[in-house]
């Protein structure tokens, strides 16, 4: 089971029965350092050998007004001794650093779940900001949960007193105090966090000392409380390590995995990489990661706008680098015309779209899968372009390599879809053995074909040659105007446009012969019901299908990596099921494409709240469709 079994507080001496998995959510003000706390808790949890998944959920405002409901930042982690593929449905433990954090998060907490609250922040002012008429810690509001309320602010101030920090700075250590307590609760090692703090505050050792003191104090508080002095009833839990395949592991976010995959892809192609980007949430992290990897022949360019970002990447591809650009929905919209140019000039290009809630500015920090139409259809003219979607942070690595492979092998732009959830979420990643990846070296045309230069002549895969400026004797002109077959000269003739449109389409559709056939994640090829997903809905669909099958229901899970072109066997596979249900975080985009491509009765299951699917939501839909 991926989400928490009932959380059984256990005696320190008797560690069984241990829960399979626990979901903890840290929630506080956006200035409270919750993402940092969550990130470090994730690291220590990974080091303890648990499988895990995280869900950072933060406001679009950098420093929203303190104490407000919309300024709450939360980080959820699901970790356990079994296969974890989602960030968990309902938290077992909620750490609420202020009234607003309590108010916006407590309704998600499991009945009987544990609330840890900082009484120091539950003053009249903060209660009013969170629109509480009375202090919920002091009445029956929270009766259905276990409540541990104590003055974390005061305890933190006491623990860092020896370091002589100002009040504001001292209170900033609150998140480390809380982390210390959480580490104690789940029997986690503090040392990696201590090392990290020492490195982070190398230039300000006093801040490192203060934060470590707060961390230790939080940890000690748990221990002391358990001994019984406080009577708070705080208990320790032990979640066993998950059985994972042997190997070297690290945690990775989607943004990191994509960056590493792009670097690996360029190296496997034998090309320098050029990355043109423009800051946009949640895609900027890719630009940040890549800008530090100069020794891998990576040039990064922060352009003046989204259009310049893609246009410069196209220019770099034209000159012989692997051009890459990245953005999120609104930026991808701006890049549309330039994608058409890359399609027309048949230059390799990778476009990463970290999807977010739309339309327009939409929900910059929330997750959605609503750019599928935009990816497959969103350009003027008949402009076919391959589209790949990553299902998880770790999967994003292989997807990025695949995007580079297709782009260079077919001389085409490729869009790689990910989303805000994948980009920010962390999961353990078995470090790949790079020797297992087959290189796909690029060959540039060095001399004219027999009978004269033909920049738009084609090989068996319909790929045109890549000709680098600087190559003697191969001067030629390309551009966005329709090209003559073979010569690439300007040509408006009707028959030629028909021929070139057909070639561009056939080239991209032909990629279906160069990708793996679609497999079934769990279940069987053929049956009563198939759930067909793509992207970051992988985790909840997988778990829901697993649970349903455990109940004896005939349901299978199919998850697409290749959105365009689709795997060549997909039509037959879909038709082997009685019913098809497509869970998506949009209003039914893949569903429509499947209906169009295969004339199958695909049914939608949609959620566009900016939050990932819960397992039980999908489970309920399965039961409904099989009723």
């Amino acid at each position: 089971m991926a989400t928490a079994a009932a959380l059984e507080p256990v005696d320190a001496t008797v560690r069984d029965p241990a829960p399979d998995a626990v979901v903890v959510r840290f929630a506080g003000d956006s200035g409270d350092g919750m993402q940092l706390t969550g990130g470090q808790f994730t690291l220590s949890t990974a080091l303890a050998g648990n499988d895990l998944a995280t869900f950072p959920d933060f406001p679009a405002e950098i420093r929203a007004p303190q104490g407000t409901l919309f300024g709450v930042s939360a980080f959820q982690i699901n970790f356990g001794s079994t296969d974890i593929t989602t960030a968990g449905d309902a938290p077992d433990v909620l750490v609420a650093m202020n009234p607003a954090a309590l108010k916006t998060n407590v309704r998600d907490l499991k009945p009987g779940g544990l609330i840890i609250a900082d009484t120091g922040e539950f003053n009249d002012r903060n209660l009013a900001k969170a629109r509480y008429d009375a202090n919920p810690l002091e009445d029956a509001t929270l009766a259905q949960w276990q409540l541990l309320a104590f003055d974390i602010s005061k305890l933190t101030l006491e623990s860092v007193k020896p370091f002589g920090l100002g009040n504001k700075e001292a209170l900033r250590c609150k998140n480390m105090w809380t982390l210390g307590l959480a580490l104690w609760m789940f029997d986690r090692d503090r040392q990696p966090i201590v090392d990290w703090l020492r490195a982070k505050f190398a230039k300000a050792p006093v801040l490192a000392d203060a934060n470590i003191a707060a961390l230790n104090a939080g940890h000690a508080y748990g221990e002391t409380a358990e001994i019984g002095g406080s009577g708070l009833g705080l208990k320790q839990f032990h979640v066993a390590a998950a059985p994972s395949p042997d190997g070297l592991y690290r945690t990775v976010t989607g943004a990191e995995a994509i960056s590493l995959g792009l670097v690996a892809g360029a190296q496997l192609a034998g090309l320098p990489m050029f990355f043109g980007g423009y800051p946009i949430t949640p895609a900027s992290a890719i630009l940040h990661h890549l800008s530090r990897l100069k020794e891998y022949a990576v040039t990064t360019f922060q352009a003046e706008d989204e259009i310049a970002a893609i246009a410069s990447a196209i220019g770099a591809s034209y000159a012989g680098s692997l051009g890459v650009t990245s953005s999120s929905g609104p930026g991808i919209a701006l890049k549309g015309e330039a994608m058409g140019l890359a399609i027309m000039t048949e230059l390799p290009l990778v476009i990463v779209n970290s999807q977010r809630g739309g339309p327009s500015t939409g929900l910059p920090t929330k997750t959605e899968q609503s750019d599928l139409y935009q990816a497959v259809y969103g350009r003027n003219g008949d402009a076919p372009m391959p589209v790949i979607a990553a299902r998880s942070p770790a999967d994003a690595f292989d997807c990025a390599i695949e995007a580079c492979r297709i782009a260079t092998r077919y001389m085409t732009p490729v869009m790689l879809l990910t989303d805000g959830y994948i980009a920010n979420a962390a999961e353990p990643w078995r470090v790949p053995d790079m020797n297992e990846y087959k290189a796909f070296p690029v060959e540039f045309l060095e001399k004219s074909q027999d009978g004269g230069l033909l920049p738009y002549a084609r090989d068996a895969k319909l790929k045109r040659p890549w000709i680098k400026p600087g190559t003697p004797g191969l001067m030629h002109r390309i551009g966005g105007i329709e090209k003559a077959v073979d010569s690439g000269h300007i040509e408006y003739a009707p028959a030629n446009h028909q021929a070139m449109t057909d070639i561009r389409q056939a080239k991209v559709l032909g990629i279906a012969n160069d990708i793996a056939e679609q497999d079934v994640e769990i279940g069987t090829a053929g049956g009563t019901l198939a759930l067909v997903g793509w992207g970051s809905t992988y985790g909840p669909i997988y778990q829901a299908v697993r649970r349903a099958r455990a109940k004896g229901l005939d349901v299978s899970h199919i998850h697409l990596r290749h959105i365009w072109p689709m795997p060549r066997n997909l039509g037959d596979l879909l038709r082997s099921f009685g019913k098809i249900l497509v869970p998506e975080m949009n209003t039914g985009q893949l569903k429509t494409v499947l209906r169009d491509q295969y004339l199958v009765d695909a049914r939608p299951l949609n959620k566009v709240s900016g939050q990932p699917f819960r397992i039980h939501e999908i489970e309920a839909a399965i039961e409904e469709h099989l009723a």
Partner: protein
Amino acid sequence: MNDMTPVQLTPKDWETDQEVRWCPGCGDYAILKAVQRTLPEIGARPENTVFISGIGCSSRFPYYVESYGFHTIHGRAPAVATGVKLANPELDVWIVTGDGDGLSIGGNHTMHILRRNLDCQILLFNNEIYGLTKGQYSPTSREGTKSPSTPFGSVDRAAKPAAFALGSGARFVGRGFDVSKNLPDVLKAAHAHRGAAFVEIFQNCIVYNKDVFADFTEKKNADEGQLWLEHGKPMLFAKGAKGIALDVERLVLKVVAVTDGDWEAAGVIVHDVTNRSVAHMLVEMPFGAFPMALGVLYDDPAPTFESAVVQQNAQAAKGKMPDLQKLVGQGQTWTVTKAPQVV
């Protein structure tokens, strides 16, 4: 070609087999000839030369030059050129654009390429009109221009390309016009300048905006209308009878009469291409009260963008061996055998 010594090329070697498709009598023909005359003289190599353009009449230019060429999308040539030059700094990059392409839809990119100082030549053909879309007024059209989209005359004020370029941080600003015999000299100076060299070329659109520059381009108006600037030479025109001087009280330029060739007595300024303050005044000089400043208005090189990028990349990579296996295994790791342990 295995010769060690490059063959001396001629203008003919820079012509393609493509039929030139501008309107008969278009000023673009003269500019194309001037460029094809200039390229052999500066020792350019076709394989190393890239012409990049956006959209518009001017942007068809690359199809007619026997080099590498990229006819991109509306306004984006500077951005494409930036990628080309960063990917291969050895290439000799020329951007061909127009007043609509470079100052309207692509104004943002023009500003940033100049600010960054990418090593390239930017030829902006200014005909004060949209030609390819059939005659709408452009950002450089004079107030009151009647066009299909402004039948009662345009009401917005015109952009000044050279002033825009200088204001954006350009380190080279030149000016010429299509049929001028001096145009190749301006192009040569632009090419010799390392960094972004901005050249405004007045171009006569004979179909939609005929003769808007006749006041200074026509032979009969040349003496009074053209001020050809040369570094180290006094700013004289009207066959030396007039010059440009500084009104020291108001700190503006003024036209002064020169008698008996004694320009020093008249206070005529000696042109210094590195004087940015004077360059600002020259690009703002209103035509009519003043002649049109032509030639090299400003030329003061600064470090180029692509060289700074190359240098920083090399510096950041120094002493680091690329190792993909190491890269993917970076950060805090742990090994799973039977029992997890920290490494």
